[in-house]
């Protein structure tokens, strides 16, 4: 017979001091997911300038790219997307029954890889911004 464990209300973020790595992975995956879907709507809105004509599209995107804030936010977006991808791969493997015992280590690996890729991308994103 299967058994259920009363885990309490895990959505109670006031208990954050008790959270294990798997819970942090869950929170970060939710947070990065919210950011990415919010960005998708914004991205489509900005790219929609293409409907109004080539000139407006080019001018709008180049104007945005000329802002340092946008370049910094792009590094943040890459970090968010990278973590969501890395942790997503981790979750797909866990769903397949692979690596459940080392799920905390694979979470730490996702964080380290995300940090490394984000830092390595900084020169590319900030190129020509100053």
């Amino acid at each position: 017979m299967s058994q259920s464990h009363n885990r309490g209300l895990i959505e109670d973020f006031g208990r954050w001091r008790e959270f294990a790595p798997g819970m942090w992975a869950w929170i970060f995956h939710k947070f990065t997911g919210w950011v990415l879907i919010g960005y998708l709507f914004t991205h489509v809105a900005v790219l929609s300038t293409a409907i109004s004509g080539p000139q407006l599209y080019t001018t709008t995107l180049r104007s945005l790219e000329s802002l340092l804030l946008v370049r910094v936010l792009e590094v943040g977006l890459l970090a968010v997307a990278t973590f969501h991808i890395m942790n997503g791969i981790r979750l797909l493997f866990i769903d397949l029954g692979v690596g459940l015992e080392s799920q905390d280590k694979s979470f730490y690996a996702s964080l380290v890889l995300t940090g490394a890729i984000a830092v390595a991308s900084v020169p590319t994103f900030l190129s020509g911004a100053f």
Partner: protein
Amino acid sequence: MAERYSSFDRRGWAWFLQRLTAAFLVIVLAFHFMLLHFVNHAYEITFLGSQARMSQVGYFITMVLFLVTATFHGVNGVFNALVNQGLKGTQKKVVLGVLAIAGLGLVIQGIRLALAMTGLV
């Protein structure tokens, strides 16, 4: 037997589709970032460059699939997060309806702009 605490729906296809779209998005999102930020640079963007890419049938189809799968994955993810937080009953149905309309609107607008980028429409 102990009470079941999960919000998991045993009947639905959404769980499987969320993972299927995830596997596709892992590859295409990484490709999208690489192509538009590291191979080509966003600050050098021009309509003509976007048009050249979007006019290739394979690229166009990939981007439309990217849009559809990302929208489903994102909107379904938001819905799942809200259900996790305890959304149920009429509120759940209303939220599902609003998210479905928002998602459909996003896909339609995305396809419109992709067609505009080809320069054919």
